[in-house]
C-alpha cells in the first residue's frame, strides 16, 4: 500500500484526502459506465518510514516564512504609513505635494516594518529547520522552541532580561498559532 505524507495525522483514511477524477468529464462519449477515480492529494511513498520523514525542506521554510513575513510587514506598514501621510495633509498643499507626503510616509513605514518582520521570519525559519533536523520529530514543541529562540535572538542586544521576555512572548505566540491552526483544521469546516 502506498503511504502518504499525512497518514499519521488522519489515521490512514484515504477517502478524506482523495480527489475524485472523472476522465470523461464534460465530453460526450457513448460509454455506458463511467468510472470515477480517487486520486491522492499528497505525494505517495513506498515505505512508511520514508513517508514519515518527508518534511518541508529548509529552503522552502526560509522562502515561505521570510516571504510571508516581509510581504505582510510591508503591506501593513504601508497601510499605516498611508494613514499617517493622509493625516499630515496641510491646507495649502498641491496635489504633487500631497502625493509626495503619502509616498514618503507609506514607503518609510512599509520598509521599516517589512524589514523587521522579514528578519523575524528569517530567524524563525532558520531555527525551526535546525531544531527539526536535530530532533528528527514533528512536534509542536519544535515550533515553540524556535519561537523562544527567535524572540531571544531578536532582542539579544537589549540585554538579558529583554531577551528573556521577548523569547517568552515569541514562544507563547507560536504555541498559540500552531494549536490554533490544528484546532481550525479539525473543527472548522472549511
Amino acid at each position: 500500500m502506498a503511504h502518504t505524507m499525512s497518514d499519521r495525522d488522519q489515521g490512514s483514511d484515504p477517502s478524506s484526502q482523495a480527489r475524485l477524477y472523472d476522465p470523461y468529464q464534460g465530453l460526450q462519449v457513448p460509454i455506458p459506465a463511467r468510472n470515477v477515480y480517487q486520486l491522492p492529494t499528497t505525494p505517495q511513498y513506498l515505505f512508511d518510514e520514508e513517508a514519515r520523514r518527508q518534511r518541508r525542506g529548509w529552503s522552502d521554510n526560509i522562502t515561505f516564512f521570510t516571504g510571508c513575513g516581509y510581504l505582510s510587514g510591508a503591506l501593513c506598514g504601508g497601510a499605516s504609513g498611508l494613514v499617517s501621510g493622509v493625516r499630515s495633509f496641510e491646507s495649502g498643499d498641491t496635489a504633487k505635494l500631497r502625493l509626495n507626503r503619502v509616498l514618503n510616509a507609506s514607503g518609510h513605514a512599509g520598509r521599516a516594518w517589512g524589514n523587521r518582520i522579514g528578519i523575524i521570519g528569517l530567524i524563525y525559519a532558520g531555527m525551526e529547520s535546525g531544531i527539526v533536523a536535530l530532533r528528527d520529530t514533528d512536534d509542536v514543541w519544535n515550533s515553540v522552541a524556535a519561537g523562544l529562540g527567535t524572540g531571544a535572538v531578536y532582542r539579544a542586544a537589549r540585554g538579558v532580561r529583554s531577551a528573556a521576555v521577548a523569547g517568552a512572548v515569541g514562544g507563547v505566540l507560536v504555541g498559540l498559532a500552531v494549536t490554533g491552526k490544528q484546532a481550525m483544521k479539525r473543527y472548522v469546516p472549511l
Partner: protein
Amino acid sequence: MGTPETSREPCPDRILDDIGGAFAMGAVGGSAFHFLKGVYNSPGGTRVLGGSQAVRLNAPRVGGSFAVWGGLFSAFDCTMVFVRQKEDPWNSIVAGAATGGFLSMRQGLGASARSAAFGGVLLALIEGAGIMLNRMFSAQQQIPVLIEEPGPNMPPLPSFMGQAQNMPEPASVTGSSSPDSGSGWLGGWFGGAKKESSAGTSSGSETKILESFDAPPVPSFEYK
C-alpha cells in the same frame, strides 16, 4: 525550450518565493559583509561588538532592498507571462528593465530611463549566461547517445540492396559468359559490388524483398 521539471513554482506563488529568497540572500550576505566591515572599522578591544552593531544596523536594510527588487521583478515577470502566455527569456529582460525604471521613477524620467536600461542589460547578461550554460550542459549529455545511433539504420538497408541485386544479376551473368574483358569486368564490378555490400550488410540476417515501397494502409480510429 526544455522540460519544465527544472522550472520554478507557478506564477502567483513564485512572487512570494522570490521575495523570501531575495530577502534571505540579502540579509545573510549583508550580514557577512557588514560584519567584516564593522570588524575592520572598529577600535581594538571592541571589534566583535562593533561588527555585530554594524550588522544590526545594516543587514535588514540590505535584505529589504533585495526583497523589493526581487519581489518587483517577479511581479513584472509574472505579468509578462500572463500577457504573452509564454515562458521566455524576453519576459525576464523586460521585467528587469521595468523594475529598474519603476524604482527610480521618483527621480524623474531621465534617471528612470537609465535605470531601466541598466536593469534590462543586466538581466539580458544573466539570461544569456544561463542559456549558454544550458546548451553546454545538454551538448555534453548528447554525445554518448549519438554513438549508438547508426544501429537502427542498418536493417532497412539490406532490403533495398536485396531488391537492387535482382536486376543487375542477369546482366552480370550474361556479361561474364561473353568474352572476359569489358562487359565482364563491368558486370562483375557492379554485380560484385552489390553482392559484396549486401553480403556485408546481411551478415547472418535474411534479406526480405518487398513487393512495393508503399506504406501499409493507415488504420482508421473510428470507434465502433
